[in-house]
């Protein structure tokens, strides 16, 4: 006698097993409707390094086009002014000071055990069926348990450390880390070519292999170019294409930017050709602002003050774009402050991830703001916070309180960013009560962080 109940149960269970689908995680969307996600994270690219910000000594036609095809942010921030902590924030949606010391070396971080426990986007989206790939610069830990494949990433092609030669990799952990191995998952590979081009090719191949309309599974692709980080090198052909630029250092830099812009163009073209454009969210952000190197005639922070490493705007306000067909109209410019921490919570809400509260995201869902569903005076963040070592900053409305040890003045400075985007006019003696208010709010946040800096 056939037990119908058993058969029905088996069918239901079998269906769930086949689709790898946990009904607990997602109530709304079937896997076919889940959007693909491409996050392109540039390295050390400044506010003044993209054409669409009104810059004429750079060439970024594809990035400019991306900006026009979605929303670009005039006050797009990153949670840290240096590479690794910025990536910690991006990939977790949580202020990285909650689980790191805010500096660059994850392996040497006394809080590394906290970091290992902090859920990462790859791990969070996995139960929903996402295939995940990270191409390029990892910079989130070199020791085995910290490597991408052990942090929920299905595919890794790139390097573990923070800086890399664009032309050469070895198969050993060389004294100069710029020549460390390039990995494909756990294996060191033979490396040939120019890194920005190679990473673009890898990104494209990942998309082709994981085409959601064929596999039935969405993908998460994180393209962490090491462009335009030191060392500053690029083949002649790119420099020739920007020969209109008079300053030799800027020309070299623009050549590096162009190689990445070409790559962005090719990735977008691939999405288009594969019929994935309508169902893929593309995000482009720089990990932090321009480095101090080469005295500003390489990377540019535009009108902003300070550099990579600083809590001034130049270190933390960056090119920031989201293209989201079907959700965000093309050609939008959004002027209220947003931060890289917002990316994961926004995606999570849209996808319908259940029990989002358990992740305690510091970022917020910004989609309603970008769809015009909010009042004009409503902004995603009342406050934004930064801290690295003894440097700090808090943004509260138009006001910003900063302590910055790189300069001469180590005392807190108060700026009104609406009138003074260049942070020139220190108003701390003019508005001492405002400064105190910001200080208090900041201390409340700081008290919620773990002890070790």
């Amino acid at each position, binding site marked *: 006698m056939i037990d119908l109940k058993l058969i029905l149960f088996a069918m239901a269970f079998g269906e769930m097993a086949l689709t790898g689908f946990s009904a607990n995680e997602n109530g709304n969307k079937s896997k076919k409707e889940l959007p693909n996600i491409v996050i392109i994270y540039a390295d050390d690219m400044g506010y003044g390094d993209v054409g669409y910000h009104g810059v004429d000594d750079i060439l970024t036609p594809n990035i400019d086009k991306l900006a026009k095809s979605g929303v670009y942010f005039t006050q797009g921030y990153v949670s840290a002014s240096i590479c690794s902590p910025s990536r910690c924030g991006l990939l977790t949606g949580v202020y990285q000071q909650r689980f790191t010391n805010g500096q660059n070396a994850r392996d040497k971080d006394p809080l590394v055990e906290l970091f290992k426990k902090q859920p990462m986007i790859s791990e969070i989206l996995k139960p929903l069926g996402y295939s995940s790939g990270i191409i390029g610069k990892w910079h989130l830990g070199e020791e085995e348990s910290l490597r991408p494949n052990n942090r929920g990433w299905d595919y890794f092609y790139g390097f573990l450390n923070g800086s890399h030669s664009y032309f050469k990799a*070895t198969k050993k952990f060389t004294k*100069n880390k710029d020549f460390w191995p390039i990995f494909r998952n756990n294996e060191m590979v033979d490396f040939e070519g120019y890194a920005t081009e190679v990473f673009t090719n890898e990104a494209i191949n990942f998309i082709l292999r994981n085409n959601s309309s064929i596999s039935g599974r969405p993908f998460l692709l994180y393209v962490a170019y090491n462009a335009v980080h030191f*060392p500053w090198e*690029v*083949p002649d052909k790119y420099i020739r294409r920007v020969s209109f630029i008079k300053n*030799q250092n800027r020309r070299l830099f623009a*050549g590096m930017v162009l190689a990445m812009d070409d790559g962005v163009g090719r990735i977008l073209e691939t999405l288009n050709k594969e019929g994935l454009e309508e169902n893929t969210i593309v995000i482009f952000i720089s990990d932090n602002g321009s480095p101090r190197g*080469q005295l500003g005639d390489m990377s540019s922070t535009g009108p902003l003050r300070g550099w990579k490493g600083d809590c001034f705007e130049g270190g933390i306000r960056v090119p920031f774009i989201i293209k989201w067909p079907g959700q965000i109209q093309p050609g939008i410019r959004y002027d209220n402050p947003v931060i890289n921490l917002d990316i994961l919570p926004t995606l999570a809400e849209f996808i319908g991830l259940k029990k989002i509260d358990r992740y305690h995201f510091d970022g917020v869902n910004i989609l309603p703001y970008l769809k015009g569903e909010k009042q004009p005076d409503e902004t995603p963040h009342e406050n934004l916070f930064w801290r690295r070592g003894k440097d700090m900053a808090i943004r509260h409305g138009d006001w910003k309180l900063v302590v910055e040890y790189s300069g001469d003045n180590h005392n807190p400075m108060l700026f009104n960013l609406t009138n003074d985007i*260049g942070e*020139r006019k220190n108003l701390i003696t003019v508005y001492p009560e405002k400064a105190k208010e910001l200080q208090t709010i900041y201390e409340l946040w700081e008290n919620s962080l773990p002890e070790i800096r």
Partner: protein
Amino acid sequence: MKLKITFLVLFLGTAMVLKATDVRGKPNIIIILADDLGYHDVGYMGGKDFLTPNIDAIANNGVWFTNGYTTCPVCAPTRAGLLTGRYQNRFGFEDNPGPYRQSKEIIPGIPLREKTMGEYFKEMGYSTAIIGKWHTENVESQNPVHRGFDKFFGFIGGASGYFIGENRKGKILRGTRPVLSEDDYLTDAFGREATLFIERNSNRNNPFLLYVPFNAPHGPFQAPEKYISMFSHIKDKKRRVLAAMIYSLDENVGLITSKIKELGLEENTLIIFISDNGGVLNLSDNSPLRSGKQDIYEGGIRVPFCMQWKEHLPENKKIDFPVISLDILPTAIAATGNQVDREWRLDGVNLLPYLTGAKEGIPHEVLYWRFLWHYAIRKGDWKLLKHRDHTDVELYNLAVDVGEQHDLCKEHPEIVEELQQLFNDWSDMMLKPQWGWQPEYCGDYKVGK
């Protein structure tokens, strides 16, 4: 706009930027490069066969180096290192331009991402010229006028005959255009053009950088009869011609230095003289060094090297600590009063404070060489090398054995290990040769013809 200007002024003030503004009174720089001139081919190093009174005078008027090196035992790579102040292996310029490449896209020459001496000096507001042998791939994009030099007279390739006449093959160029003819003996032509350039640029408002890479005494071995007959006492015919070529080289060096003296510019001109690599074996005299051009023993890489700057550098001072051709660029930049920025990642060092005694110590703890199948590393008096024809590395103490006769590997394994590790760390950072003559090293894509 106001914000932008304020910002600009603020950061210019704090910057270590090459100042293009006030160049008046800044010193002229002349760099004279001989081609394949051996360690002992010059009078001041003890050579008796050849006559080099003018080169000797530079040494007598300034400092001369007994342990002066170049970065490669052959021509073009040395020039690439000299012009960039960086080990040329960093950008794959390990071999002379040749038919083999790593890929079709590669064009032999200093990549655009590397800044040349001309480009540094143009940024500083100098007039710049190169007279002589440039030695990259013969394409217009590699012409010196596109690499920071206002004026160019000479040839792009690796070698040239000395009696041009009608320039039918278009070998001798002025800028990017071939000259119609050249009737002077080529070494004389270069001397002539150099002194003309000095005359035209000798006012103090516009200092100049003049780079004169003579091709003398590189082959083919040709010289005017009148000079050859001066050396009839030399039995070996080829060596007699060499003597004549070196005599002409020296005479033209003299034209340059006497022009400087005549114009009253000696106190305001830094003059540097160096050879690009050691002399050809069995022809030049590299004694007491072992071997010569193309080889990794001292005879291939240690060369005549001296410099004068009246009133600024000591006179007739012998310097024994190791220096290298990479030092020329930072030294020249420092001479202009500008600082060498660490961001430029130069491997060369500004020698001036070491030469005047303002700074204690020595400019280089370690020096490195890699040329395809050869490599070497020098630390203090110790030199470890790997020679193509020998299976094992060799270790020499140059203080007691400058002729590299006594291999001390077995006696000092710990030094071998230390130097080998240091060399490996350095070599890890170098690209593989991007072009050249050896497909096993340079890639096997071969340019047609």
